[in-house]
């Protein structure tokens, strides 16, 4: 059976579906910002921005930009009715103090034990960390949004990160263009696969064992003609 990778917007939409009503959420710079475009309209979700905003709204209409109202990526945003401003120290207390329910971050690599590498590629690049390390240790749930493979086809889910670490054992879940994977004490568990992708193929691409979730194991058994539950 053939499968197709899903787009960045589709990953964003998939993540948005898992964010519950009332969650305090920080969306990292870059790809995770897309999640904001897909939040279910029927849920009240509080977006936090590291530079001192809770209840952050979408980008303003053209011509309505306010230079004093920007997000962590320095792009113009709006404030929802009921939103609040506060200073940087309070903003990072919200992170470190474990008040944020979810943060969604991009990554260069995630290890099998949930180590995160997303701030520095090492070598000659000028190091810049911003709020990445604070978010990584602070949010109750760190979710990573990334492409499963690098441009050259190597897995970004690795036995051990080779890029400099952002945090140790912090990632709980990874959403990629191929799968949704949980980091558990038992190891990585594939919770969802894109249509047509077999767990064996995902394991081959990832280059390491992935435990199937019960639902995926049952589906795989069915496809092999086994009777499930007997």
């Amino acid at each position, binding site marked *: 059976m053939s499968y197709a990778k899903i787009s960045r917007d589709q990953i964003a939409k998939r993540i948005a579906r898992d964010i519950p009503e009332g969650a305090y959420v920080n969306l990292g*710079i*870059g790809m995770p910002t897309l999640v904001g475009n897909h939040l279910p309209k029927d849920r009240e979700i509080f977006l936090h*921005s*590291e*530079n*001192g*905003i809770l209840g952050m709204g979408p980008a303003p209409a053209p011509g309505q*930009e*306010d*230079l*004093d*109202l*920007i997000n*962590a*990526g*320095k*792009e*113009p945003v709006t*404030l929802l009715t009921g939103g609040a*401003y*506060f*200073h*940087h*120290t309070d*903003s*990072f207390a919200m*992170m*470190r103090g474990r008040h944020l329910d979810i943060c969604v971050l991009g990554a260069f690599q995630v290890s099998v034990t949930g180590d995160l590498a997303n701030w*520095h590629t090492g070598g000659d*690049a*000028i*190091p*810049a*960390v*911003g*709020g*990445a*390390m*604070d978010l990584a*240790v*602070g949010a109750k749930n760190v979710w990573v949004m990334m492409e499963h493979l690098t441009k050259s086809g190597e897995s970004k889910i690795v036995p051990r990160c080779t890029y*400099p*670490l*952002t*945090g*140790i054992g912090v990632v709980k879940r990874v959403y990629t263009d191929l799968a949704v994977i949980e980091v558990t004490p038992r190891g990585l568990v594939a919770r969802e696969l894109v249509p047509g992708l077999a767990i064996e193929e995902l394991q081959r691409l990832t280059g390491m064992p992935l435990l199937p979730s019960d639902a995926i194991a049952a589906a795989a058994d069915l496809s092999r003609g086994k009777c499930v539950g007997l």
Partner: protein
Amino acid sequence: MIDKIVPSVDAALADVRDGSTVLVGGFGGAGVPAELIDALIAQGAKDLTIVNNNAGNGEVGVAALLKAGRVRKIVCSYPRLADGYVFEALYRAGKVELELVPQGTLSERMRAAGAGIGAFYTPTGYGTDLAKGKETRKIDGKGYVLEHPLRGDVALVKAERGDRWGNLVYRKSARNFGPTMASAAKCTIAQVYEIVELGALDPECIVTPGIFVTRVVKVPRKKTTTMQTAAA
């Protein structure tokens, strides 16, 4: 009568010495005390340590200070900006020192300085390159890094309104590092767009009480046309 209002940005910065540590507010284009930075360049103090979230954009603000050769060291969280070429050239030439600090640690270190805290343990950065050489400790099974206060000789902050006692209010996300930096320096200079009578600021809503502010200077409101966009 107490009057912290000074007539000009030049007067506000007259006594900044060579070798000072200067805390400079702002995040991206919001809350940057641009007029005070320009005045600091004109004032001529050199060998400065600059504490800011970034390391300057284009050739204005902190980048202009760097370009003028006044900065010995930058303490920041995110020096890599799309048009941060002034810092990049100086850094690669070994002409400016960089102390890279996670953003929340940067802010908390200044809070600690302003609040009289000797040092603090933070989970941020534990086990990473940015904790190398630092004292660490496990508390209830979790790893922490010991971080020390970051004090300024001078803080330059931008607020929206102030009064002669130095009480300040800010505007939207331009508040960012302002209140914390104001508390962390020996001499805090606030530039404001409006100076109001005592009592005009609602006491329930004053963000920075005047005890943290040394001088207030009014600057004209400018129409800014460029929007800085870059990764944070």
